[in-house]
C-alpha cells in the first residue's frame, strides 16, 4: 500500500478559534515516547495524514488506520468527536 503525504492547507490553521476535538489512540511501538490515548484539538477538516505528521510518525511505519472502528485512508478528513486509532504493521494469529 502506498501512503501519500498530505499537506494541511495553511488557511485551516489560520481560521481563528475553529477547532475540533478528536480522540487519538496509539498502539504497539507508536506508544513508545508518545502516549496511549489523548484527546487532541485540530482545525476542522484536518486529514488523518496531518495528524500522523504531527505525531512525527514516518508514513511507511503506518500499518493500519482505524477511524471510528473502521479502516481508513490517510486522506480522510476528521470530524468533531472522531476516534482515530493508529497501528504500526503488526500481526499475530
Amino acid at each position, binding site marked *: 500500500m502506498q501512503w501519500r503525504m498530505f499537506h494541511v492547507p495553511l488557511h485551516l490553521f489560520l481560521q481563528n478559534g475553529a477547532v475540533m476535538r478528536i480522540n487519538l489512540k496509539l*498502539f504497539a511501538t507508536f506508544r513508545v515516547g508518545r502516549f496511549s490515548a489523548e484527546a487532541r484539538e485540530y482545525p476542522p477538516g484536518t486529514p488523518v495524514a496531518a495528524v500522523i505528521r504531527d505525531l512525527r510518525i514516518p508514513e511507511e511505519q503506518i500499518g493500519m488506520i482505524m477511524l471510528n472502528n473502521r479502516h481508513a485512508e490517510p486522506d480522510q478528513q476528521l470530524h468533531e468527536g472522531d476516534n482515530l486509532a493508529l497501528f504500526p504493521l503488526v500481526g499475530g494469529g
Partner: protein
Amino acid sequence: MDKIIRVNMTDLSTKVETVPSAWAGLGGRALTSTIVAAEVPPTCHALGPNNKLVFAPGLLTGTPAANSGRLSAGAKSPLTGTIKESNAGGTAAQMLARLGIKALIIEGLPKGEAWYSLHVSTDGVTIQEETELVGRGNFAVVEAVEARLGKKTGILTIGPAGEMKMTAANISVKDPDSKIRSHGRGGLGAVMGSKKIKFISIDDKGAPGVKIADPEKFKTAARTFAKALLDHPVSGEGLPTYGTNVLVNILNEAGGLPTRNFTHGQFAAHEKICGETMHDTIVARGGKPKHGCHAGCIIQCSQVYPDKEGKYVTSGFEYETIWGLGADCCVDNLDDIALADNIMDDIGIDSIETAVMFGVAMEAGILPFGDGKGIIRLLKEEIGKGTPLGRILGGGAGSVGKAFGVTRVPVVKNQGIPAYDPRSVKGIGITYATSTMGADHTSGYTIATNILNVGGYVDPLKKDGQVELSRNLQIATAAVDSTGMCIFIAFPALDIPECLPALIDMINARFGIALTGDDVIELGKYILKTERQFNIEAGFTKADDRLPEFFNVEPVPPHNVVWDFSGEEIDEFWNF
C-alpha cells in the same frame, strides 16, 4: 533412507517400513491427512481400535531452513468427527526428521488396563509398560522422562485430560526449554489416551540427519527466505516484541473481539490484557518478551511470562488463550489468565477449546463472568480430577452447551470458534464454516487481509471477496502446513515477492526436484480435497459448513452486524 514406523498397540508390535513412492513427496499435513484418509475408515469411532494417530515432520524439518521445525499430528478427531491435523513446535519434529522418520503411525488399542510409553531411536521404536507417570501432569512427565533418559530427550505427552479421553485434550510437545507446546485442537490427546500411550520419548543420538540434494542452492534460498522473515515488519518486529497478543487491541478497535460469550465485539478492559501491557509486565518482572518454540525459529513470537516474584508461570502465551479467558470470559487479570494457561498445559487440554468452553459455562451459570479464580479452580478441581462436571467441561464448548441447554454455543463441527467474530470479520467466518477441521482460524487466516493490511485489503464488514480470500488462503496454508513451516511465514510470503519462491527453492534443493509455484498450489488443493472426501464419507454434508444460528440473528456491537452469507454463497468455496 527415510522410513515409516508403525506401532500396533493391539498386539504391541512395531515395524519399520520403506516409504511408498506415493508418499515420498509428502510431509507434515499432506502426509498425515493422506495416511488417515487411506487407512482410517471415516465412519469409525475416533476413540476405537480403527482410528490411527499419525505424526509427521514437514518436508523441510530437520534442515537449517528458518522456522521449519513444526510437527503435524493427524487422526480422526473425537471432538469434530472430521479428519484432523494439528501442528506444533517443540523439539520432536526435528529429532524425528533427523532419524529419517517420515511418519510414525500408531494403530490399534491394547487389551487390558495397562499404560505404555514408546521410545524412538536409531534402533526403531520400542513399547514399554508405564506405571510411575500415569495420572501425572505434563510438566511432571517432562521432568521424570528427562531424569530417566537425559536432558536432550524429545517428548510427546498427554496429561490427565488425555488419559480420561476428554475431547478437548491435547498432545504436549517438549520445547527447547523443557516447557510445553501443544498439538492443541481437535482432541488428539484423547486419541493418544485411547491407545493407552502416556508419552513418547525420542533419542536422536547417532541419527543420520537430513541429506540435502543441492546444498549450495539450498543455502542461497535459505538466506533469501530468512531475510524476508526478518525484513517484514510483522515477523521481524511486531511478533517478537508483543507476541500474538498484540491482536487484543487491534480486534477490539475493529469491533471484532468476541466478548462475553460472543455478545459484544469490544471488551472494556482490553488494556489490562493486551499485548502492550503483557510486554511491559514481562519486561518489568524480568521475563523474556521473546522466545522460540523450536530451534531455528527466527520470529520468536513466544515469551516467558513470570509472576510478581519473577518465577516462571507460562510460555507460548497466545492471543487466542488471552482473548478467550480475557474478553470472552470478561476476566481482566492477566496473572489469572497466565496461571490458567499453565494449568491447561499441565493437565493437557486445548487452551482455545477450553477458553471458548468457559464462555459458554459462564452463560450457563456454572460460574460468573469475570471469575478468573473460578476458572483456575474448575481447571484444577473438576477437569484435572475428572469429576462428572469436569468431564462435561473437558468435552469443550459444545459439550457444555448441550449439558446445560445453552443456545449461544460458538462452534462449527463442534469445535470452538476462536478469537475473531465472524459477523464483523466476515472472511474468517467463511474459513470457520468451510475448514475441513471445524472452526479453525489458522486454516485460512483472513485476518491478515481483512484487518492487518497484509496481502492487500478486503473490507471485513462486506461480503465481497471473502470466499475467494478464504479459499486462496486455505489452499496456501494446507501446502505450508506440509513443509514444517510456522504459519507466520505467511506474513512475509503475502507481501515480499522473493519469500515464496525461496521456500519452493529450498524444497527443490532438499529433494533434488523441480516443483513450481503451481505444483505447490496443486498440493494445497489435493490436501483440502482429500480431507473433505474423508469428511463426506464420515457423514458430513454442506449443511455442516454453516455457522451457529445465533450469528444470523444476533447483531454484534459496535457495528451491529449479523452473519449474512447464504448457504449457496458459502458452498461456492468448494468450486476449485
